[in-house]
């Protein structure tokens, strides 16, 4: 294996789903695997990444249902008024200072985050798309601040707990395409229910998707599967890619279809009138729990119900029958 040179920086951003409702229920379901155990595993992963190469960088974002908060690094450290100063020299067990400071800080931040937020009735979904968007902006900034001659490779690891929020489809897709354009891999480690959105993200950006069979072994799976970076992955035997279902759901019958009809006007639509209708169409299909569907029609209908456009129906060509010449009988 090649030694990474001083000029290669590898940035890992870990986005952890800290949805308080899911974790609260989890504490009742499986008391041996709680949010603090999960964060312990994430910290082990983060520490390992920092220790692999001196130039590696790390960021951790907690994805909550009201905000996305950067657990690490702290934006105040640059000014010297960070909390790290007092605790830095007292790690006690001889651990590399950077790691102990980081771990303490992460623990502190997550406690503050969970205690200061009140969950209101309808805000129960994790804002994953928002956290990913912030992660991309952070990666973009760090890439600009590199020294001359340094190259950076970045990837995002998502640790997902709660279910998908179908309302985020559009934003999620925007984020995925932005990540693909910047060559940023999105890996997903799913704790509970499969996530169609993350499967698409991993498929499009070239990352790894894994639903782990035993939650208490989270640290082991993170270190085995997600610690090696993209260059090293080709030399390892990792879990096989999942089969992603990109089929659309038809608007009228909710069946998954292969051949459908899409209104060309809706595809290039007038914003002021159709916008609200288009949004409501998507809302309807999303409520049926198929986050990656578009409004399509399974049968040819003469009027688009979304935008009331009458369609030009292609008529079969009328072939003129030739008059047969009767041969004169001799």
């Amino acid at each position: 294996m090649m030694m990474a040179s001083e000029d290669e920086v590898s940035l890992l951003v870990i986005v952890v789903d800290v949805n308080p409702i899911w974790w609260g229920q989890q504490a009742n379901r499986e008391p041996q695997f709680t949010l603090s155990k999960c964060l312990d595993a994430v910290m082990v992963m983060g520490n390992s990444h920092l220790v692999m190469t001196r130039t590696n960088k790390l960021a951790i974002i907690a994805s909550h249902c009201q905000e996305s908060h950067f657990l690490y690094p702290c934006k105040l450290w640059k000014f010297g008024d960070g909390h790290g100063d007092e605790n830095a020299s007292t790690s006690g067990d001889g651990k590399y200072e950077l790691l102990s400071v980081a771990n303490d800080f992460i623990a502190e931040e997550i406690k503050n985050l969970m205690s200061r937020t009140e969950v209101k009735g309808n805000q129960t979904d994790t804002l994953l798309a928002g956290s990913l968007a912030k992660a991309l902006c952070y990666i973009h900034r760090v890439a600009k601040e590199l020294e001359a001659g340094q190259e950076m490779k970045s990837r995002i690891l998502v640790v997902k707990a709660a279910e998908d929020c179908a309302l985020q489809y559009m934003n999620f897709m925007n984020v995925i395409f932005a990540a693909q354009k910047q060559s940023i891999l999105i890996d997903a480690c799913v704790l509970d229910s499969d996530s169609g959105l993350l499967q698409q993200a991993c498929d499009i950006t070239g990352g790894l998707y894994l639903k782990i069979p035993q939650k208490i072994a989270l640290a082991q799976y993170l270190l085995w599967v997600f610690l090696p970076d993209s260059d090293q992955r080709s030399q390892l035997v990792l879990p096989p890619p999942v089969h992603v279902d990109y089929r659309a759901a038809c608007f009228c019958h909710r069946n998954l279809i292969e051949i459908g009809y899409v209104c060309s006007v809706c595809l290039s639509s007038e914003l002021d009138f159709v916008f609200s209708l288009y949004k409501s169409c998507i809302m309807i299909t999303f409520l049926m729990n198929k986050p990656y569907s578009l409004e399509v029609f399974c049968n040819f209908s003469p009027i688009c119900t979304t935008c009331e456009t009458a369609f030009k129906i292609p008529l079969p060509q009328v072939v003129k029958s030739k008059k047969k010449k009767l041969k004169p009988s001799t």
Partner: protein
Amino acid sequence: MDEEPERAKRWEGGYERTWEILKEDESGSLKATVEEILFQAKRKRVFESHGQVRLGMMRHLYVVIDTSRTMEDQDLKPNRLTSTLKLVEYFVEEYFDQNPISQVGIITTKNKRAEKLTDLAGNPKKHIDALKKAKDSTCGGEPSLYNSLSLAMQTLKHMPGHSSREVLIIFSSLTTCDPANIYELVKTLKALKIRVSVIGLSAEVRVCTVLTRETGGSYHVILDESHFRELLMFHVKPPPATSSSECSLIRMVFLFSLPPGFPQHTIASISDQDAKPSFSQAHLDSTSGGPGLSMGGYFCPQCQAKYTELPVECKVCGLTLVSAPHLARSFHHLFPLEAFQESPLLLHHTERFCEACQGELKDKSVFTCPSCNSVFCVECDLFIHDTLHCCPSCIHSRSAP
């Protein structure tokens, strides 16, 4: 000139009294002025949305590249042809990024003739390979506008009514050699609703001005290479759709992907056809060699023809094959992100950090999203509008999409 509107050539105005822009501050340094100029240059790149206009999403575009004698001129380094081909490669990549369900074809013209370099296709690789090979070709003779336009017209007139038909000509010569009256051809193009735009490399030519004015396209002459790139990028965005384009239901197919080389034994739910290696339709036509047999691929549900990449139009039954993420890529044109409001940093005492990247706000102005009032730095503003197409803070509020 007769019916043309009077236009003064004001590009020269940009070069008057350029020394007045530079101002020294108290210590005699020009740093502040230089930073200001850089800042303004960055702001120019921000995407301006069309607003409440219908856009043509399915586009059929022909790029006509002039490969006549004048392309050997070295005013663009290393010569005009190499520079143009490199920029057109970049254009093709960006074009498919912004318009994933559109198609592009390339035509070259020299020696008073026109020939197709590549046919209309939805896959960028073919075009980029052809452009790379064309770098070795020789330039010579005179171009022919008539021949290249009629060649493009032959294919474009069969395109369905709901898609936009466009031709982009990169024209370097000052002459054109036509077998017939080009003004008749312009009338035909106008009747077929084909929009022709020209990017001139030498100087303004009257026949191009008339051509673009009649068909509704744009005509610009480049100043230098970076201006050339800017003008090309202008054509990447979907143009406003004409009100007369027909409305029809497009038959599209949404396929589930089977990556090539997918191991056989894990495909339980797919039909038997996938188990055998088969030839892809694209490989049957291509002359690039290489093994044609592959295990995985996409099968057209109607005729079971196999293709290795999407999006593509099925050669057997004419069905448009896409996957849902391709259409999702076009969404940001339908729901463009509003431009953020610029305001000086001094007004914002409370925020020290950019909401998105957590970096310190140290530019002289900050940008505020009008919907959620979050504050962003200038780099994040550019990144959000060029690449991300959604405000990171707005996503945190409940409204969808």
